[in-house]
C-alpha cells in the first residue's frame, strides 16, 4: 500500500502541469496537433489514476485544450469526480471545467445534483460560491427544479458574498424552471433593499432581466426603483434602473413626468459617461411617451448630443439616440443635418451606417438634392462594395420614399439613376432598373427626357457590360431597352438606337434582357417605319431598316434562351413579310404600329384583389379530380403488366368536369350577371371604369396632374445631376420672386390688412416648393374597379333623440356603464316586465372603445354585453321574486348568465336552488362532483324587498340555433310562524341575437370582409315600417347588438360578431315604409335565425 502511494507520487513527479502543457504547445509550433494528441493520451492515463490531485491537474489541462477547440466531453465523468473532491483547490478546478464544457445534454449532469446540494450547504462560503458559479453556467431544468429550494434559502444567507450569488443565479433558475418565480419573487423583491450594495445590485440585475421579458408585470415595483434611483450611488445599479425605466415609461406615462427631474439632476451631476448616456436615452424615451413638453427638453438633448460628438467613440451612441428622437420629433434632429452629414465622412463604418439610417428620415423637398449630392460624392469615394451598395440602396430609398414625395425634379432623379449605373460591381442593377421603369411610366412628362437618356445608355452599353464581372449592372439595360421601345415616339433618332440594340455584343447579355431587346427592337422598327413612310425620299431608309433587322435578328434566333429565340424568329418572319410588302410599295406602317398600339399600364400589386370572385366560384376547389394517389396506384398496376387495360377503361368512365359547352357557359355568365346586379354586396364596376375596360385603353382616365413646366426640360449633353441642383435653386428663386410679386400686389391691394399676414416668411417653407413634375400615384387604387361608396365618417351619425336613446343606439359611442345604471332604475319601475334587455357590463364598457379605432384583425375588446331574455312563468302561489337576467359572454363556448333575484313578497326567502334541465347543446356548469341534475345553491338569502344577483355559467356548443332551457328555482319562504317550500318554473331563452357581441368595425376592414367572399348572403324585407330610419337603426343596434359601420342617407351598413367569431354584416335600406335588409354571414344558419329575430322585433312594434 505504502509502496503504491510512493509510486503514485513518483509518477506525479513527471506529470505535466498546465504551465508545462502551455510551454510544450508553444515549443511545438510545427506539429502542434500531434503534440496535443500525445498530451491527450497522457491526460487519459492520468485520469485513470486514483490520486485526485493528478486527476485535477489533468482536468485543468483539459480546460485549456477545450479553449483551443478540442472536444473534452469524454472526460465529463472525471470532471464530476474532481468536482466532488473535498479540497477547495480541486473542487474549483472541477467546477470550472464543468462550466466550460457541460451543457443540457451532458448526461452525467444528473449525477451532480446531490454533490451540488452538498456544496451549497457547505460551511465554507467559497465552496458554496464555487458551486453557485458553476451551476449558473450549466443549470438544467432538472437541476433548477431540484435545487430551487436550496438556492432560495441561500438568498438569506448570512454572508453577502453568498447572498448576491444566490440572488443572481435565481434568474437562471427562473429561466429553466419558471414555476419557481412565484414563490421566490417576494424574497427577491426584499433583496432590493438589502443592506449590502452587491446584493442590491444583483437583485436589480435579475429584476431588470425579468422585466425586459415582460415589463408590464413589474410596473408595481416602480416606486421601489424610484427610491433606489435617488439613493443609490452604484453606477451599474443606476444604469440598470434607468434602462428599466426607459422600458417602463411607454406603459405608464405618469412615470415619465416624475422621472424627468431626477434624471436631469443625474445628467448634470454625474461624471460617468455611461450613466450620462443612459440618462439621456431614458429622457428621450420619456419625452417620446409624453410627446409634450418637448421644446423645454430638446435643448438638453442637443446639449448632451454635442457633448457626445466631441468624443469619437460616442458619436455612434449619439447617432443611435438621434434615430430614436427622429421617429417622433424629426424637426429637432433635422437641425443637426450638417453634423450627421459629417458623420458620413467618418472612417468608421459603424458610424457611417448609423448616419445613413438617420438621413432617410431627414430629407425634405428642400434638402433632398443637397443630401443626395453629398451621398453621390461618397459613392464615388467609397471603397468596399458592401458600403457602397448600402449607399446606393439608401439613395434610392431616400428618393423613392412615399411615392417620390420629396422629388421636385424628376430629370434630376433620372440623371442620378444614370450616374449610379457607372458604379462598378454593384449588386443592385435590378433596383436601379426598376426605379427607371417606375419613373418613366408614372411621370409622363419625363418620358422624353428619360428616353433620351436611355438611348445614350443603350449606345454606351459596352461600357456597362465591358467587364463580365460587372453583371449586376446590366440589368439596367433591361429598363433602358424597354423604355426606348415603349416610348419610342419620343426618340429623336430611332435608327441609331435600333442599331445599338442589335449589336452582336448584345448576345452576351443574360437571356431575359436579350428578349426585351428583341421585342423592343420591333417596336422601334414600327416607329421608324411610321416616321419614314409616305415621304418618297425616305422609303429607302425604311427598307434599309428592314434589311438591318433581317441581317441581325438571326443572331438571336440562334440563342439558347427559349424566350429570345421565340421572339426573334417571330419578329424575323414578320419583318421579312413587311420587306416584301415594302418592295411592292405597299404602306405598312399603320399596321405595324398597330401591333404595339395601346399603352402598357402598371397594375398595382393588389389590383387582383379588387376583381371580385364570381358568385359560386370556390377557388380552393379542384377543377378536375386531384391527380394524386391514383397515379402512384397506376404505376403500381402498370408494373404488374396485365392490369393496364382494365385501368384504362375505368379511366374513361370518369366524368369529365372540364367539358362544358359554350352555350352552357354563356348561360351561366348571364345568370351570374343578373345575380350580381341584384346583389348589393357585389362590388360593381363603376360605369366609367367599365367603359374604360371596354375601350381597352384606360390611360385617359387616370388623373394626371398637368405640370407647370417652369424648368426647361432639356439639359444639353450627358446628364449631370449637379446641374439640376443649380437649376432647381434658380427655379425656387424665381418662384419666390413670383410669389413675392404677387404678395406685394396683394399687399398693395389690401393695404393695411396685408401687413399682418405672416410677415416675410423668412426661410421658404415646405409648401413653397412646388414639384416640377407630378407622379401618377398608381399604387393601390390604380384600376378603379370600385370602392365602397359609403365613406361617411362615423362621427357624423347623429340622432335627434333624447340622450338615453342615443346611448342605447350605439353603446360603443358612450361609456355603457352609465346607460346600464340608468336602465336598471327604469326596469325596476316596470315591474314584471316579461322581457328585459339589459346592457350589463362591469367596467368592460370602458374598454369598448369608440367605433373604428380598432383594427379588425386584432382581438377586439369585447364588450361583454349581451342581454339574455328570461321568460318567467309567474308563480301563482307566491309573491314573485322577479328575476332580471343579464347575460355575460366570455368566450366561444361559455356563457355567463347573471340573474337578479328580487324578493317582492313580505317574507324571508332562503335556501334557493337554481336548476336547469340541460340540453345536448347547452349545459349548466356545475361544480366538480355534482350530478348532471343537481341544482346550484344560490349563495345568499333574501329578506323582503331585497334583490341580489347570482351568476351561472353555461357551456354552449352550437350557437347557430336559438334555444330555450327549462329551469326551476326552489326556495323556502319563511314567514313568522311557518316556512313553506316553493317552486318557480322558468324558461331561459337563448336567442341567436344574444350570441352576438356589439363589435366596432372599420369601414375598410368591413369592405375587405365583404370582398373576401367567405360570407353567404340572405335577405329580408319588412313592409310597413313607418319609423324614421335612425330609429330603425337604433333598434337593430340595441336589440340585436349591431354597430353601424357607415350610413348614407337611407342606407346603412352594420356589423356584428358572434361569440364564436362569425362575422355578420347587414346592409339596411329603406324606401317608403319598406325596409330591406341584406345580410351576409359565414354561418348561414345563424344568419337566418338572427334575421327572424330582427323580423320579430319589428313585428312587435
Amino acid at each position, binding site marked *: 500500500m505504502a509502496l503504491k502511494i510512493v509510486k503514485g507520487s513518483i509518477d506525479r*513527479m513527471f506529470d505535466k502541469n498546465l504551465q508545462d502543457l502551455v510551454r510544450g504547445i508553444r515549443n511545438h509550433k510545427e506539429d502542434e496537433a500531434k503534440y496535443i494528441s500525445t498530451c491527450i493520451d497522457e491526460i487519459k492515463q492520468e485520469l485513470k489514476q486514483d490520486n485526485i490531485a493528478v486527476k485535477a491537474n489533468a482536468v485543468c489541462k483539459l480546460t485549456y485544450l477545450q479553449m483551443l477547440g478540442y472536444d473534452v466531453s469524454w472526460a465529463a465523468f472525471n470532471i464530476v469526480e474532481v468536482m466532488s473532491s473535498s479540497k477547495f483547490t480541486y473542487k474549483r478546478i472541477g467546477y470550472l471545467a464543468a462550466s466550460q464544457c457541460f451543457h443540457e445534454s451532458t448526461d452525467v449532469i444528473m449525477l451532480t445534483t446531490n454533490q451540488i446540494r452538498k456544496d451549497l450547504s457547505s460551511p465554507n462560503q467559497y465552496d458554496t460560491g464555487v458551486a453557485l458559479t458553476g451551476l449558473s453556467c450549466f443549470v438544467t431544468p432538472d437541476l433548477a427544479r431540484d435545487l430551487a429550494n436550496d438556492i432560495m434559502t441561500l438568498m438569506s444567507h448570512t454572508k453577502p458574498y453568498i447572498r*448576491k450569488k444566490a440572488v443572481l443565479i435565481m434568474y437562471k433558475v427562473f429561466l429553466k424552471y419558471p414555476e419557481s418565480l412565484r414563490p421566490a419573487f417576494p424574497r427577491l423583491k426584499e433583496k432590493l433593499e438589502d443592506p449590502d450594495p452587491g446584493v442590491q445590485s444583483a437583485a436589480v440585475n435579475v429584476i431588470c432581466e425579468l422585466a425586459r421579458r415582460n415589463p408590464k408585470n413589474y410596473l408595481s415595483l416602480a416606486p421601489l426603483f424610484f427610491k433606489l434611483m435617488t439613493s443609490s450611488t452604484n453606477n451599474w445599479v443606476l444604469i440598470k434602473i434607468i434602462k428599466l425605466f426607459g422600458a417602463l415609461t411607454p406603459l405608464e406615462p405618469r412615470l415619465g413626468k416624475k422621472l424627468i427631474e431626477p434624471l436631469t439632476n443625474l445628467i448634470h451631476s454625474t461624471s460617468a459617461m455611461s450613466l450620462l448616456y443612459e440618462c439621456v436615452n431614458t429622457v428621450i424615451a420619456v419625452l417620446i411617451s409624453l410627446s409634450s413638453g418637448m421644446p423645454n427638453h430638446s435643448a438638453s438633448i442637443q446639449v448632451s448630443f454635442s457633448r457626445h460628438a466631441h468624443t469619437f467613440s460616442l458619436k455612434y451612441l449619439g447617432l443611435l439616440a438621434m434615430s430614436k428622437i427622429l421617429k417622433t420629433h424629426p424637426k429637432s434632429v433635422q437641425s443637426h443635418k450638417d453634423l450627421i452629414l459629417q458623420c458620413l465622412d467618418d472612417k468608421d463604418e459603424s458610424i457611417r451606417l448609423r448616419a445613413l439610417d438617420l438621413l432617410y428620415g431627414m430629407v425634405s423637398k428642400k434638402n433632398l438634392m443637397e443630401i443626395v449630392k453629398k451621398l453621390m460624392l461618397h459613392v464615388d469615394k467609397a471603397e468596399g462594395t458592401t458600403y457602397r451598395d448600402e449607399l446606393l440602396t439608401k439613395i434610392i430609398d431616400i428618393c423613392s420614399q412615399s411615392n417620390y414625395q420629396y422629388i421636385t425634379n424628376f430629370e434630376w432623379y433620372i440623371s442620378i439613376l444614370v450616374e449610379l449605373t457607372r458604379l462598378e460591381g454593384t449588386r443592385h442593377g435590378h433596383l436601379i432598373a426598376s426605379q427607371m421603369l417606375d419613373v418613366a411610366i408614372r411621370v409622363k412628362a419625363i418620358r422624353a427626357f428619360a428616353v433620351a437618356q436611355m438611348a445614350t445608355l443603350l449606345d454606351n452599353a459596352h461600357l456597362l457590360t465591358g467587364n463580365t464581372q460587372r453583371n449586376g449592372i446590366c440589368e439596367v439595360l433591361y429598363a433602358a431597352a424597354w423604355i426606348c421601345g415603349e416610348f419610342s415616339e419620343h426618340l429623336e433618332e430611332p435608327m441609331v438606337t435600333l442599331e445599338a440594340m442589335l449589336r452582336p455584343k448584345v448576345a452576351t447579355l443574360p437571356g431575359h434582357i436579350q428578349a426585351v431587346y428583341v421585342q423592343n427592337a420591333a417596336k422601334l422598327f414600327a416607329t421608324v417605319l411610321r416616321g419614314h413612310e409616305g415621304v418618297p425620299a425616305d422609303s429607302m431608309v425604311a427598307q434599309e431598316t428592314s434589311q438591318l433587322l433581317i441581317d441581325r435578328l438571326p443572331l438571336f434566333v440562334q440563342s439558347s434562351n427559349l424566350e429570345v429565340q421565340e421572339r426573334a424568329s417571330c419578329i424575323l418572319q414578320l419583318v421579312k413579310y413587311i420587306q416584301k410588302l415594302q418592295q411592292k410599295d405597299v404602306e405598312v406602317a399603320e399596321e405595324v404600329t398597330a401591333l404595339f398600339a395601346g399603352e402598357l399600364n402598371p397594375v398595382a400589386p393588389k389590383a387582383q384583389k379588387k376583381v371580385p370572385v364570381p358568385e359560386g366560384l370556390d377557388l380552393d376547389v379542384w377543377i378536375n379530380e386531384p391527380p394524386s394517389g391514383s397515379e402512384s396506384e397506376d404505376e403500381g398496376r402498370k408494373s404488374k403488366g396485365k392490369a393496364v387495360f382494365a385501368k384504362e377503361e375505368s379511366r374513361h368512365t370518369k366524368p369529365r368536369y372540364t367539358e362544358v359547352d359554350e352555350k352552357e357557359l354563356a348561360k351561366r355568365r348571364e345568370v351570374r350577371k343578373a345575380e350580381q346586379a341584384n346583389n348589393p354586396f357585389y362590388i360593381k364596376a363603376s360605369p366609367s371604369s367599365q367603359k374604360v375596360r371596354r375601350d381597352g385603353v384606360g390611360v385617359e382616365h387616370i388623373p394626371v396632374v398637368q405640370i407647370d413646366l417652369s424648368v426647361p426640360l432639356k439639359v444639353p449633353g450627358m446628364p449631370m445631376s449637379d446641374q439640376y441642383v443649380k437649376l432647381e435653386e434658380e427655379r425656387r428663386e424665381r418662384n419666390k420672386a413670383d410669389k413675392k410679386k404677387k404678395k406685394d400686389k396683394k399687399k398693395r391691394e389690401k393695404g393695411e390688412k396685408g401687413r399682418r399676414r405672416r410677415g416675410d416668411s423668412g426661410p421658404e417653407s415646405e409648401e413653397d416648393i412646388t414639384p416640377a413634375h407630378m407622379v401618377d400615384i398608381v399604387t393601390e387604387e390604380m384600376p378603379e374597379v370600385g370602392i365602397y361608396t359609403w365613406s361617411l365618417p362615423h362621427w357624423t351619425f347623429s340622432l335627434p333623440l333624447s340622450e338615453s336613446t342615443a346611448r342605447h343606439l350605439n353603446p360603443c359611442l358612450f361609456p355603457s356603464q352609465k346607460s346600464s345604471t340608468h336602465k336598471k332604475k327604469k326596469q325596476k319601475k316596470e315591474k314584471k316586465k316579461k322581457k328585459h334587455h339589459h346592457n350589463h357590463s362591469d367596467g368592460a364598457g370602458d374598454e369598448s372603445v369608440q367605433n373604428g379605432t380598432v383594427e379588425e384583425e386584432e382581438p377586439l375588446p369585447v364588450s361583454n354585453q349581451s342581454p339574455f331574455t328570461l321568460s318567467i312563468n309567474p308563480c301563482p302561489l307566491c309573491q314573485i321574486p322577479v328575476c332580471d337576467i343579464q347575460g355575460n359572454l366570455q368566450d366561444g363556448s361559455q356563457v355567463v348568465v347573471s340573474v337578479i333575484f328580487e324578493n317582492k313578497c313580505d317574507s324571508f326567502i332562503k335556501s334557493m336552488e337554481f336548476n336547469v334541465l340541460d340540453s345536448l347543446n347547452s349545459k349548466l356548469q356545475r361544480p366538480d362532483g355534482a350530478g348532471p341534475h343537481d341544482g346550484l345553491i344560490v349563495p345568499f338569502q333574501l329578506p323582503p324587498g331585497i334583490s341580489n344577483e347570482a351568476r351561472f355559467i353555461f357551456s354552449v356548443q352550437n350557437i347557430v340555433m336559438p334555444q330555450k332551457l327549462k329551469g326551476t328555482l326552489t326556495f323556502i319562504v319563511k314567514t313568522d310562524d311557518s316556512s313553506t317550500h316553493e317552486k318557480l318554473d322558468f324558461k331561459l331563452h337563448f336567442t341567436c341575437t344574444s350570441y352576438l357581441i356589439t363589435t366596432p368595425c372599420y369601414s375598410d376592414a368591413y369592405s375587405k370582409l365583404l370582398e373576401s367572399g367567405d360570407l353567404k348572403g340572405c335577405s329580408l324585407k319588412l313592409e310597413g315600417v313607418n319609423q324614421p330610419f335612425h330609429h330603425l337603426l337604433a333598434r337593430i343596434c340595441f336589440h340585436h347588438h349591431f354597430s353601424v359601420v357607415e350610413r348614407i342617407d337611407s342606407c346603412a351598413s352594420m356589423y356584428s360578431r358572434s361569440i364564436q367569431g362569425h362575422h355578420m354584416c347587414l346592409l339596411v335600406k329603406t324606401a317608403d315604409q319598406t325596409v330591406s335588409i341584406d345580410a351576409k354571414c359565414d354561418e348561414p344558419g345563424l344568419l337566418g335565425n338572427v334575421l327572424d329575430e330582427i323580423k320579430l322585433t319589428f313585428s312587435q312594434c
Partner: protein
Amino acid sequence: MIKAILIFNNHGKPRLIRFYEYFAEDVQQQIIRETFHLVSKRDDNVCNFLEGGSLIGGSDYKLIYRHYATLYFVFCVDSSESELGILDLIQVFVETLDKCFENVCELDLIFHMDKVHFILQEVVMGGMVLETNMNEIVGQVELQNRMEKSEGGFSAAPARAVSAVKNINLPEMPRNINIGDINIKVPSLSPF
C-alpha cells in the same frame, strides 16, 4: 445579459473564452475567428461597438470590445446591457487583472488561464454582472487564493521542486520565451 466573453491576442489566438450559452467546440472556434476578423481590421480610434457577427447573436446583439496592447477583450451582449456600462466593466476587469497579477501582461493570461477564469467568475456570473467594485473583487480573489495555499496548493512547493528536477532532464527547455511580453497598459479612465 452577456452572451460571451472572448479574450484573444492580435493574431487571433484565444487566451480566454467564456460562453454563457452552449456552443459546440468547433462553433466556438468559428465564432472566435469571425470576431477576430471583425475586430482586428478596425482602427484603434474608431468606436468600440460592432453590430452583430452572424454566428453569435443576431440583430439584438452587439460586440463591445477594448484593445489593450496585444490583447482584445470582447464582450458579446444583448440590448439589455448598456454599451458604455460594458466598456467600463471591461476596464474594471482589466484593472482587476492588473492588480492580481501585478502588471499583467499577455504571458500571465497564457500561463494562468485558470486564474483568469477565477477572477472573471467574481465579476460576471452566468452572463450577469456580479460585482463592479474592484476592491471587493480583488479581496474575494485573494481570500480564495489564500485558502488554496492553506490546502497545500495546486502547484505547491514539492510539486515545484519536482518540476525543477524534471526540467533538468529536458535540454530543449526554452531559456527565454520570445513573445511580446508587453505589459497591458491600463489607461486610467473614468472610474466606474
